[in-house]
C-alpha cells in the first residue's frame, strides 16, 4: 500500500453472509449489496443496529455509503497479523476515513458531507467475519446504502489540474412572471484529471479495472496533492480510462469519475 493514495477503487463487492439484528422487510439486506447508494437498507427499530458480514480472503477495504449512523463501532474485526485491533470506533461527523495502519485520530476525516466510511488495510489472508454496530445519536432508525468489501486497485495522486465539478439533476423551469421554479434533486460530484504512473500500474488500471469492469459502479477514494482533501464516493468511470505512453517508464492515465445515486 502506498502512503500516498491518489485514485483508489474496489471493483467488486465480495462481501458475503450479511445479516442484521433488525430488518425492515420493505428495505431488505439486498439493498445494501446492490450498486445504488440511495437504495437503502433499513433497520426496523430505533436501537443500535448490528450488522455482521464476512470479508473474503484478499479483501483490502471496507466501505459504508449513505448511512445516517453517527458512529460505527467495529467490534470484532480481529486480524491475525495484528495489523488491526478490535474495538476501533468512529464518533460524530458523518464521514470517516482511515487508512491502515491506523493512526487514530489523525487519519479520521469528518467532512460531514457524504455519510460515508472507508477503510483500507493490508489484504486479509483468510475469510474474516466483521461485526459493525451502527448508532445514531438521535435514535433515528439506521439506514445503510452500501456495504462493500473487496480488493483494491490504486494509483498515485492526480497531477496538477485535477478538477472537481458537479452534475445537478434538479428540475428548473421559467414561470409565467419570469421567476424560476426549482425542484432540488440530487447533485453528484465528478472528478477528472491525469495520473502519472508506471507501466505496471497503467496495466492494472487500464486492463484490470477499465476494460474488465467497464463503467460499473464501485467505491472510489480520490485525493489531490493536498492530503487534507480526500473524497470517498460511490461512482463509476465517466468514460473508459485512456493513457498516453510518455516513455518506457511513465504513462499518463486520464481518469474521469462520476458519482452515482
Amino acid at each position: 500500500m502506498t502512503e500516498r493514495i491518489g485514485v483508489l477503487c474496489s471493483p467488486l463487492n465480495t462481501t458475503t453472509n450479511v445479516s442484521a439484528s433488525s430488518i425492515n422487510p420493505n428495505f431488505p439486506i439486498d439493498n445494501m449489496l446492490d450498486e445504488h447508494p440511495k437504495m437503502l437498507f433499513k433497520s426496523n427499530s430505533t436501537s443500535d443496529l448490528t450488522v455482521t458480514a464476512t470479508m473474503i480472503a484478499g479483501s483490502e477495504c471496507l466501505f459504508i455509503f449513505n448511512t445516517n449512523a453517527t458512529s460505527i463501532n467495529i467490534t470484532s474485526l480481529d486480524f491475525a497479523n495484528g495489523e488491526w485491533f478490535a474495538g476501533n470506533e468512529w464518533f460524530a461527523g458523518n464521514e470517516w476515513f482511515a487508512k491502515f495502519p491506523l493512526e487514530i485520530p489523525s487519519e479520521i476525516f469528518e467532512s460531514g458531507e457524504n455519510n460515508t466510511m472507508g477503510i483500507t488495510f493490508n489484504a486479509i489472508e483468510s475469510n474474516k467475519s466483521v461485526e459493525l454496530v451502527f448508532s445514531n445519536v438521535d435514535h433515528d432508525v439506521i439506514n445503510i446504502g452500501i456495504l462493500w468489501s473487496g480488493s483494491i486497485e490504486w494509483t498515485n495522486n492526480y497531477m496538477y489540474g485535477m478538477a472537481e465539478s458537479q452534475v445537478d439533476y434538479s428540475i428548473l423551469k421559467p414561470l409565467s412572471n419570469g421567476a424560476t421554479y426549482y425542484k432540488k434533486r440530487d447533485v453528484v460530484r465528478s472528478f477528472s484529471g491525469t495520473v502519472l504512473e508506471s507501466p505496471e500500474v497503467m496495466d492494472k488500471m487500464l486492463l484490470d479495472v477499465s476494460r474488465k469492469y467497464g463503467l460499473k459502479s464501485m467505491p472510489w477514494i480520490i485525493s489531490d496533492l493536498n492530503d487534507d482533501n480526500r473524497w470517498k464516493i460511490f461512482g463509476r468511470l465517466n468514460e473508459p480510462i485512456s493513457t498516453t505512453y510518455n516513455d518506457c517508464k511513465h504513462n499518463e492515465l486520464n481518469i474521469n469519475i462520476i458519482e452515482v445515486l
Partner: protein
Amino acid sequence: MSVYITTTINSTDHYVSNEFIHDIHMWDAKVEEVSNITSVIEYQYGGYMRPQYGSITFIPTLFKNDFPPPETIESSIKVGDTESGAIQLCESLCSLGLYDREIISYNAIGTAKQDYDSDNSFSGTLIDMFNWACDSSRLNYTLDTTHARTPSPAISKTLSGDNLIVDMLSEASAYFSHYFYIEGNTLYLIDMFANTGSKTLSEFDYTPVSYQSSEDISLLTSGGYSILGSTPSGHQIDIDPWHTAQSNIESALQNIKISLEKDLITLELSHINNNIAIGNQVTFTDQSMIGDTTTTFIVTKINFNISVDDERMIIEGRGITTSI
C-alpha cells in the same frame, strides 16, 4: 411532490419511481418516463371523462427476474408529498409495447367495465338513465349525483341496434352539458357548470400560458331545431338529439353553445399538483402579456408527463378571460 408507481409483475409488487424515494417502501428509480396520463372529457361540452393512460417506460433491470417481459402487468400511479398521503392518478392494466436493450415500455389500457344494450327507449331524466345504467345487472356502479343539475334534464330517446352503455351515457350526458367519471366503484355525474372546487393560482404556479380563442359557431342544430351561434360566418354544428321537444332541445343547445364559445385555456403548472381535479374552477391572474388579465375556467382535461429529468402537469378547460 413525488411519484409513486406500484407495478405488479407476475404477481410480485415492485415499488418504483423516477427517483429514489425511501418512505414506507423503498421506491426504486426504475421509471424512465410516464407519458400522457390524461383525464379528458370526451366532448368539449361534456360526456365521459375517459381516462387515456398513455405509456410507462421502465429501465430494463426492473425485469431482470421476469425477462422477456410479460404481455401484461398492472400499475397504479400516485402522486403526493408522502407515500401514505399520495393521491391516485390512475390504476391500469398495462400491455407490453416496445422494448429493446435500453427500455421496456408498456401501454396503459385501463380497467373500466363495459356492457352493452339493445333496442332501448329512454324517458324520464338524465339521472334516471344513469340509475338504470348503474344498476347491478348492468355496470354495477354506485351513482353519485351530488354535483348533477337539479332538476335533472328530461330525456326522450329511442335507440336501435346494439350500443355500448358507457358510450350512450357519454352522448346523453354531453347533450345535457354533464360529464361523468368513474372512481373505484362509484360513477360521479356532474353538471358542466357546477363548481366542484375553487382553486386560485398565482404566477408562481404556472409556466407561460396560451389562450385559444373560442370556436366560431354560426348555427347549432339538433333534431331539426336550431339556435344561432355568435359568429354568423362561423361553422355549423349538428348534434344527435336526446329529446324530441323543441324547448328541451333548444335549452340543451344553449348550454352547449355557452361551453363551446368560451376560450380554451391551456395551463402548464410548475409542478405536479394533486390538489386540482377535473371539474374544479380555476382562477388565475396573468401579468405577462401586453395587458393584465384574470381568467376563470372549469378544468376538463388534465395531462401528466413524468420523466427522469422533468415532471409536468397540464390542465385545460374552457373559460373567460377579462382585463384587470
